[in-house]
């Protein structure tokens, strides 16, 4: 009987992969709302993986921000715009061939890089304390932090500008 953290890892990893697959390739329903709900489940299982890595703050913030706010807005937009299921398009050979080539190429790169990395293979020892994270954000990684906030500001201003009504 493997240790309980291994069981949880397999459980969460399987859930993440399954729900991620269901977002894009759901054989039962092509409803966009179903895809959004599966994406929420993917995010929740990923936060479970974060907990196993002892990054409690990241896990909680993942649920709080991603699953709780971003995905709700996604669902909101899907429902408000009444996006229906897409019609099935005709199968085109050349596009599918190029797509398959891209997928297999990316998969080959991933597998090669996973195979040649030296994994440390130990359970995490540092308890991800929130105080330490806060200190890091404000002294070693201050510039990236500020740049990310400027990025968000630019996105918001762009949205407001694009959706402004013309002043008569």
């Amino acid at each position: 009987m493997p240790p309980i953290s291994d069981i949880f890892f397999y459980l969460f990893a399987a859930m993440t992969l399954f729900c991620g697959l269901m977002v894009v390739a759901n054989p039962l329903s092509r409803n966009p709302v179903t895809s959004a709900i599966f994406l929420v489940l993917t995010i929740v299982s990923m936060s479970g993986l974060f907990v196993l890595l002892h990054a409690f703050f990241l896990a909680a913030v993942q649920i709080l921000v991603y699953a709780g706010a971003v995905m709700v807005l996604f669902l909101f937009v899907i429902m408000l715009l009444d996006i229906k299921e897409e019609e099935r398009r005709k199968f085109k050979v050349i596009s599918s061939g190029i797509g398959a080539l891209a997928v297999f190429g990316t998969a080959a790169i991933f597998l090669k890089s996973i195979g040649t990395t030296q994994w440390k293979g130990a359970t995490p020892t540092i308890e991800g304390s929130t105080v330490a994270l806060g200190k890091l954000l404000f002294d070693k990684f201050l510039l990236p932090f500020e740049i990310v906030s400027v990025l968000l500001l630019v996105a918001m201003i762009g949205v407001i500008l694009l959706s402004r009504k013309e002043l008569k």
Partner: protein
Amino acid sequence: MDSLLQHWNSLAPLTQSVVFSTLKVLGVLFLALLPMVAYSVLAERKISAFIQDRQGPNRASLPLLGSIPILGPLLTKLGIWQPLADGVKSILKEDFTPSYVRKAYFWLAPAITLIPAFMTVGVIPFGSTLGSQKMVIADLNVGILYTFGIVSLGVYGIVLAGYASNSKYPFLGGIRSTAQMISYELAMGMSVIPVFMIIGKLNLSDIITHQAQHGWMALPFMATQQTFASYLLWPCMIVSFGIFLVSAFAETNRLPFDLPESETELVAGYNTEYSSMKFALFFMGEYASMITASCMMVVLFFGGWSLPFFGLDQPATSIIGGLAHIAIFVAKILFFMVVFIWVRWMLPRFRYDQLMDLGWRRFIPVALANILVTAVVMYFVR
């Protein structure tokens, strides 16, 4: 009894803690939370009735117990047996699924509303210790983030309920409620940051022990040792508590922010297509989230299970002390539940644009300014 104790002591500590955690979860859920939900429905009906010049439920009675000489009619007049009648009615009523709903989401939505409301109770310390066991199901170091995360998951139930019902009024109610809840989540989260800045930890039990020693956040004079710093920070804490209180009303869709389920406008909002047991689940979810919001307010601003006299500000060393702490906590929660119920009939409903205006354009700037002012005051005091 002795053999049971022997068997208990022979188990590994891991098994012991797993068994006791399961007992705690089941005990809190079925012995504390569900009866509190049922009786808070009764309390709402009685208090609303008294404010509205009428009597409320006073006729439900059990066959034998109702005829005990003086106690029977008194309890019946108080309506104590009414939640039993409501439960039996919910079980026996026809649970009707209309043909035009989206069945999977229709069935999931009440469950998705109820589960986060119950999960949040897992981190709340409703007492200090009882014997040697801590009176909190999960003593997380990021307790408050867990709480806010789970509360934000509760929005999904309402979104899906409105979407699944596939008809005008529930859809409008669901969308309105979603927008309202995500707006006030922001204000709620930002308004409690000053509390954590002062205390320095995110663990809910540590918050209570800090308040037990240095004075409650909202009432700094309830302390065993008064400090000047806590009085200086009192205005910031009042602002913080005010924003949190109003945001809690908006999060639980209670008046004056109950436009998503207003009877005069939207029939019953997202509840319209639901009957009997599923409606009962929504109803229980709403009252459970009210209880959770009251718990959060008590823990963060009113000192949790502690009182500044009779030595009740230290973690309990005896069973009596442990029980006293639990009783104090429950009394404070009941006070806030009465506040929730009272405010429902005190204030008229907010119009939707006024509601969103309040959440985004008034509360968020005030909460941000509050964080800044608290930081400045703390810098000069330390």
